């Protein structure tokens, strides 16, 4: 029940994102989408992931997107047509993805552990976040340290882009043209 409501909200707002004419409105519809996806993670008992989703996506990536929208001329962007000829192409890709999910991903995916066992193990460790911490710092240690380096690279890249404000404006005008 809760799943159905949240899923309906997520899908409806996602449709809004692409169909609403005003770019800022579509950004805020994206907020709703991301927020309800975060709530869906709670239904999956992935609390930490849910909080992270909301904190990172709603709290920072969305704010970044909104800042980026403030960089461009919003009135001009609103005047652009939202759908060009590529919409047929996009629908084609969507259909292929759905078929792929139904035929290949759903039959092949399985839980590494049974859900009941996982819930029991989570309760034993004290909670979701402890389980994540334990596996992050034992089994996935290389990925963890690698993540720090990726973030360092991203910091360098962000500063490089930020040092040349004109390049950001040029990029955003590219986005504007294709939206």
């Amino acid at each position, binding site marked *: 029940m809760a799943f159905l409501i949240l899923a309906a909200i997520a899908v409806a707002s996602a449709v809004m994102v692409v169909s609403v004419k005003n770019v800022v409105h579509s950004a805020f519809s994206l907020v709703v989408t991301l927020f309800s996806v975060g709530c869906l993670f*709670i*239904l999956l*008992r992935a*609390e*930490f992931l849910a909080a*992270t989703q909301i*904190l*990172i996506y709603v*709290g*920072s*990536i969305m*704010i*970044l997107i909104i*800042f*980026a929208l*403030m*960089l*461009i*001329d*919003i*009135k001009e962007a609103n005047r652009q047509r939202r759908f060009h000829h590529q919409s047929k192409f996009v629908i084609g890709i969507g259909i292929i993805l759905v078929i792929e999910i139904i035929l290949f991903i759903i039959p092949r995916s399985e839980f590494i552990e049974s859900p009941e066992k996982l*819930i029991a193990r989570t309760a034993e460790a*004290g*909670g979701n*976040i*402890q389980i*994540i*911490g*334990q596996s*992050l*710092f*034992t089994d996935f*240690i290389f990925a*963890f*340290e690698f*993540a*720090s*380096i990726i*973030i*360092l690279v*991203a*910091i*360098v890249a*962000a*500063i490089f*882009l*930020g*040092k040349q*404000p004109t390049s*950001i*404006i040029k990029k955003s005008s590219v986005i504007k043209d294709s939206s």
Partner: protein
Amino acid sequence: MLADYVPVVLLLAIGLLIGVSSQLIGKLVRPDRPDPEKLSPYECGIEPEGDTLSPNAIPYYIYGLLFLLFEVEVLFFFTWAAVYQNMMLFAFIEITFFAFILFLGLIYAWLKGALDWRAG
């Protein structure tokens, strides 16, 4: 576990209800006498000038980017802190490495002047 979140939903609903109902109730009692002067955006009494939504957010945008990256790192610290007492030395070495790289990023941003405020 899911039952723990029912009150959260309840409070969210109450919050939304307060927000919506107070605006609706207010509608019944408050006067509504708009005129063009009242409805123009406030600019210290002068006639509004130029476009409101002029693009000027570049300095904010850089802080936003840096914030996003640091926020991701900081969340890793949370998971680390929750299990630190179970693994001690090993976790300490790992986090020292991690924090060192974070610190490098901060120093780099500092030296490159990305933290300096430039009025947009």
